[in-house]
């Protein structure tokens, strides 16, 4: 809270759905192809063409509705939003006005520190995307790429329930995570497959909400955070100087880190919404709505909770695994394959596996399987090999499909846990390092690490470090009593 003001944030998230085809024609829905190749007379809005609704779009949107605890309007309609722009070939966008497919939901987001914040979801509706204007030094004027025309979108409108940019960020990240888990959007920010408009106002708690400004062109979650903070400060400064905030639409310039006015309320466009006469009323059978609810996969928040409560992971670790669908799937499959230690497994997933994934390699591009991972973790958990030896094995089973037992034997990685052998070793090391023993006894506790290290070195890494430490402590205790 700055100078006693509270920030009030509402978000409109547009997510492109990853259906195979577009929303109103059978053109392919895919990003990054040669300009104006994924088009047909329908998505180009040529005279006489008509839209026909891709039913998958309705299904996908209902899934999101269920995920955000919305009520589903089984009977709803589509409307035309009229405005002129060169990237909009029909000069209207087919959208939904007064009756959205889903409404009145909520989303619980877990803030850093584990506190849960519930954010209301006003509505989710389906609509078509527009094309893209291309500008370049290489040609005069602007060109239009219509490939994106008719790509299906859902717009998720939150209630003004967020009170900081951190909450907005957590909300956006949770939305993105859900979209990925229910597999209805690729959520690639850089490809524009998820975009958001931000509504910001400020007020003093206990007083009515302030006048809000809408900010467009927010192209990343971090831009949303910067934009909200900037906008809140701007409004507070105006109020503190005795001015009033004007209701307007502003454009966020992320490079400069400022928002600029686009149009005020007086210049607001009149979209002249009316029911789309080329399409029938959408009627979704009750059984279908139920089926989509029953077959919804476990959602990310529930997964995080389960990882914490069932597997004893820290909230942070659980969230880190769940953040990436592939990691979480691998984690769960490895457990299913018989991995005994979820915590050790989590370390591997967040350590070595994340390392090669960060380099752009997918798990499925390597030789690593959940079965192998489970077996490897179990070797470590059982004390049969050390963590360090495990890394050697890991590197090999990532590179090629080999038997773990054979690798351990071949490389001589098996850990010695036999106490009599280790006791002999301890006696040797202790007698050779009397100075360190007396250091330890005089209170220099890190001498213990040195002694264990010496044992490990002498065993060429095969000694079980845990067992070794116990024995050393026992021996030192014996020495001190003498």
């Amino acid at each position, binding site marked *: 809270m700055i100078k006693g003001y509270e920030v009030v944030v509402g978000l409109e998230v547009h997510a492109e759905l990853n259906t195979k085809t577009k929303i109103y024609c059978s053109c392919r829905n895919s990003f990054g192809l040669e300009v104006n190749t994924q088009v047909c*007379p329908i998505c180009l809005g040529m*005279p*006489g063409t008509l839209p026909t609704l891709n039913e998958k779009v309705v299904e996908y949107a209902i899934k999101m509705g269920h995920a955000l605890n919305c009520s589903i309007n089984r009977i709803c309609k589509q409307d035309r939003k009229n405005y002129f722009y060169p990237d909009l070939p029909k000069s209207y966008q087919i959208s939904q006005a007064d009756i959205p497919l889903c409404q009145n939901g909520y989303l619980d987001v877990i803030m850093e520190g584990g506190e849960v914040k519930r954010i209301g979801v006003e509505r989710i509706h389906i609509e078509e995307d527009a094309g893209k204007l291309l500008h370049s030094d290489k040609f005069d004027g602007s060109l239009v790429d219509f490939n994106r025309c008719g790509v299906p979108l859902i717009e998720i409108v939150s209630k003004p329930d967020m009170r900081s940019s951190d909450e907005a960020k957590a909300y956006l990240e949770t939305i993105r995570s859900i979209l990925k888990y229910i597999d209805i959007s690729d959520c690639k920010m850089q490809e524009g497959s998820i975009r958001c408009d931000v509504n910001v106002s400020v007020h003093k708690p206990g007083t009515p909400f302030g006048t809000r400004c809408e900010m467009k062109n927010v192209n990343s979650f971090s831009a949303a955070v910067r934009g909200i903070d900037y906008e809140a400060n701007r409004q507070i400064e105006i109020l503190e100087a005795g001015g009033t905030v004007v209701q307007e639409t502003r454009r966020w310039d992320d490079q400069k880190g400022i928002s600029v006015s686009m149009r005020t309320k007086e210049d607001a466009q009149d979209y002249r919404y009316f029911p789309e006469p*080329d399409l*029938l009323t959408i009627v979704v059978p009750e059984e279908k709505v139920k089926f989509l609810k029953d077959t919804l996969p476990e959602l990310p928040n529930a997964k995080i909770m389960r990882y914490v409560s069932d597997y004893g992971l820290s909230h942070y670790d659980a969230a880190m695994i769940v953040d990436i669908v592939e990691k979480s799937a691998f984690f769960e499959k490895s457990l299913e394959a018989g991995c005994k230690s979820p915590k050790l497994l989590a370390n591997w997933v967040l350590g070595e596996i994340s390392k090669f994934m960060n380099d752009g390699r997918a798990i499925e591009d390597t030789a690593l399987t959940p079965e192998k991972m489970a077996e490897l973790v179990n070797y470590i958990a059982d004390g049969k090999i050390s963590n360090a030896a495990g890394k050697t094995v890991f590197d090999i089973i990532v590179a090629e499909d080999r038997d773990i037992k054979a690798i351990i034997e071949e490389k001589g990685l098996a850990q010695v846990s036999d106490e009599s052998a280790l006791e002999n070793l301890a006696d040797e090391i202790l007698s050779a390092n009397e100075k360190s023993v007396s250091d330890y006894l005089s209170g220099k506790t890190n001498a213990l690490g040195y002694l264990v290290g010496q044992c490990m070195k002498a065993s060429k890494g095969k000694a079980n470090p845990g067992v070794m430490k116990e024995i050393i402590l026992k021996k030192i205790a014996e020495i001190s009593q003498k």
Partner: protein
Amino acid sequence: MKNLYEYSAFELSEMLRDKKISSVELTEAVLDRAEKIDGKINAYLMTDREMSLKMAAEADKLISSGEAKSRLAGIPVGIKDNISTKGIHTTCASRMLENYVPVFNATVIDKLANAGSVIIGKLNMDEFAMGSSTENSYFAVTKNPFDLTCVPGGSSGGSAAAVSAQEAVIALGSDTGGSIRQPASLCGVVGLKPTYGSVSRYGLVAFASSLDQIGSLGRCVKDVALLQDEIQGHDPMDATSADRSYNSLYDGLTDKILGLKIGIPEEYFGKGVKPEIADAVMKAVRALEAGGAKVVPISLPSTKYALSAYYIIACAEASSNLARFDGVKYGYRAKDCDGLIDMYEKTRSEGFGREVKRRIMLGTFVLSSGYFDAYYKKAKLLQKRIRQEFEDAFKNVDAIVTPTSPSEAFKIGDRISDPLAMYAADICTVTVNIAGLPAVSVPCGYSEAGLPYGMQIIGRKFDEQTILNLAFAHENAFGGFRRPEL
């Protein structure tokens, strides 16, 4: 010896099948006729002899190999110029689309092509189908074959005039508020506006999506049935197309009308309708009664609101449908523009004619925030009421008979500067579009000056058969097509 262009489609169909004539001969005869007289009529915006003869030659092959399945194989069909034809200019009689050549066929054109029909040319109309006289064409004013100083009606004026002047055998039109029936009436031919949803709208350049319907014009009821048989049917490309089975209307055609109940709504015979026309229609009704039909007086009280409701809904949809003509992608683009907004404004100011602009402005207004409830919403409520009144009426009657047009053909130029007088031409026809019903117009009399009167027969949804049977019975009693002196 009758000239080939004078025959009806159903007769020509048999002659082609019996190999008495070829499609090439027939197509040439019709093109020759058009070449000879269209200078007087201005029905065609485009003919292409080479293209049509090529299609005819293919049709002949199809017929001689015995592969022709359709009765329309080899028959030339005229196409209203708002129906998309691949590779052939489709202008909607607008400067806006003067040079527009579609890359795809309307579903009805594909159907005709599959049937082996021959496209004989593209026909004149009011710009974007907005008008009742064909005077709103950017290119030419079509003349009424019965009196060249009179309008042929509209908006399918080119289609009606071409069929009437025997420079087309049959033709496709479109009907949003009477645009097939009114010109059919004024030109003395038969025109069918089918049930909304029975003919695919895919490829029909939209005027008012919820009211538009493609239909047929011919010189006799049989020909209209024949053409409707070919174009009707469910189309997955049109979400508003009705998924149901469609029977052959031609095969079902009969003049046995014993026991059919005909409703006569008083509202369609009173103020605004010429008494001579009302009398001619009632005379025809009496003849049907003599043929076994029962006549029942009925009332459709909301009729008086229909014209207002119609112009609000139609203009609202048009303002949105015609927004795509913005100079960006195809069609007309104004020169010397100062930026995007200036380009939009100049393009649309110069590319559209007065009537189109008037309706776009009306439609934009009624959809504007603050006016939507007062106009559009109210009009939609009226639409519901009008539909309900028809539904109730059809519980007691099998068909409803009215005049098609309140007057016979009027003089060119008479109403062009008085839009309200022009809109009144649709007073008897708009309710049918508002209710989504089928209706046919058949000639039922002639003025002293020899101008045709039309009778409109309205039916239940998807009951084209009953109204065509009544039209057929009437035609047999009244006499068929009377050809204009040209």
